[in-house]
């Protein structure tokens, strides 16, 4: 493996109770790359993320992060979950939630001090959450919650940021804002980003590479290298057509009307965003 790789998958095979989820994954993710992890539901996107986090072990093969085997709880990897459940009356302010990103996994409680408060405040400012920093998290919108989760993940200055379907609970406008925010942070702080989404179109302008998952297999490369009928046909194991309209890309199984990767944004007129 090269020293330039942030994440390396070597012959990774993953099966749960006899059911194969991922097969023979073999790829490198370059340092500082913004990678869109794209694929239909059930393609194994979340499994891939959990492997990088060290939450599950591959059935065979190895996963390396910056040249060393993955280990659970590494602070150099920031993780942004889809969302969180919170009652409007839950006594937890935005800054409390974000602050847990600093050292929430440690025993005992954190005594507030100026340096700590300042770090949290700086991060709230960085993600544009200053206005609602003292509001209870349960009263915030999906986009506002997503900003807090990003701030929470960034507090330890991770070198890799994993986002698991951050757009799935957001309207198109807030989704676009979140993508811009992540792209900006990735660029400024040289963070390697793995951004999981079921539609690649919102990410077209910002991603350096696409990791396309289907049928438990993956192809990695630039959009122009990967999103081609012959490449995807081999990946899906069935004839696939690629349609480019006004700078947007739709992937269809031949003869089908509904795109393979996701139709939702199209149905809701994503072209407007």
């Amino acid at each position, binding site marked *: 493996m090269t020293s330039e790789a942030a994440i390396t998958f070597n012959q990774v095979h993953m099966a749960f109770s006899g059911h194969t989820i991922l097969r023979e994954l073999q790829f490198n993710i370059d340092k500082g790359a913004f990678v869109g992890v794209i694929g239909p539901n059930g393609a194994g996107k979340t499994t891939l993320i959990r492997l990088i986090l060290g*939450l599950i072990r591959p059935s065979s093969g190895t996963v390396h992060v910056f040249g060393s085997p993955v280990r659970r709880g590494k602070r150099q990897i920031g993780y942004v979950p889809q969302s969180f459940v919170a009652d409007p009356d839950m*006594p937890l302010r935005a800054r409390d939630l974000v602050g*847990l990103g600093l050292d*929430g996994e440690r025993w*005992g409680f954190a005594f507030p001090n100026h340096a700590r408060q300042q770090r949290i405040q700086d991060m709230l400012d960085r993600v544009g959450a200053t206005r609602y920093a003292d509001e209870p998290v349960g009263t915030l919108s999906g986009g506002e919650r997503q900003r807090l989760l990003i701030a929470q993940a960034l507090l330890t200055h991770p070198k890799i940021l994993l986002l698991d379907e951050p757009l799935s609970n957001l309207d198109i406008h807030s989704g676009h804002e979140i993508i811009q925010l992540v792209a900006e942070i990735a660029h400024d702080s040289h963070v390697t980003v793995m951004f999981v989404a079921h539609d690649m179109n919102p990410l077209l302008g910002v991603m350096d590479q696409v990791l396309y998952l289907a049928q438990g297999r993956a192809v990695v490369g630039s959009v122009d290298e990967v999103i081609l009928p012959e490449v995807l046909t081999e990946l899906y194991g069935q004839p696939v057509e690629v349609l480019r309209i006004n700078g947007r890309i739709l992937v269809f199984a031949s003869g089908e009307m509904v795109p393979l990767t996701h139709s939702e944004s199209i149905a809701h007129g994503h072209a407007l965003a």
Partner: protein
Amino acid sequence: MTNLWQHIFEPGLFTYPFLIHAWISASAVAIISPLIGFFVNLRGESFVAHAVPRGAFAGAAAAFLVGANSILGLSVFALAMALSMGFMRRHSQNGVITALTLVMALGLGDLFLTIGNTYAPEVFALLFGQLLGVSASETMAITVLSVVLVIVVGIVFRPLLLSSTVPEFAAARGVSLTAMNLTFAVLVALDASLTVPVVGALLAFSLMIGPAAAGGYLAKSPWGAMGYAIAVALGSVWIAIIIGYDTSLPIGFLVASLSLVAYVVARLIHMARKTRRFKRYVSPL
């Protein structure tokens, strides 16, 4: 004026040994219960907090039967109850199993009380509490266990808070969710076994959930909410002891009513604040 004070604080209120026991054990429970209740509310698991004390009732009945320390019996049964509920919830979403466990525990309690020919007043005390009848050894057990629980909550505070709010993030940071769920179940169980002698198996819920929910309405931050919750719980049990001693009204009834009143007041304050904020927000238009 002096007469009024003497009327409220009747002679013996702070000197009779049984009242000293009552003050100490009620205060200990009123400090630990809201802390655990904060996490119960945060995790949306008030059903567990509701069911576990009732299961613990069987333990106290068993302790009566064999002549063991009732706190010990309560703890053993509450732990078994909480852990089995946690285990079953992980392996099936079927609420019927949980409910049946609860019913079985109550049935066992009935059996133990019948075999032991336990007198009605003792059964009554288990169900509704008998704060003024807490013995010196029980007071000791309650105090020691409360201190231990406060320390444990202090130790697991951050990982428990993190895993209760953003579990996937907590797991990614290396927090074991299984360990945290287990810790939570044990905390609820031990807290329930402390609360039963004070307000009884049926009313234990009122000290764990009421004040914590009131605290949630009054404060925005975890610390503020827990502070208010403890203040509400202490206020409720203290006033309940004073009124109960003066009037012979049952303490369990008084604690339940006072924490309900505190909850309603907190909710009204919360609503008033929200309306004010909303008005300020729309007034520039």
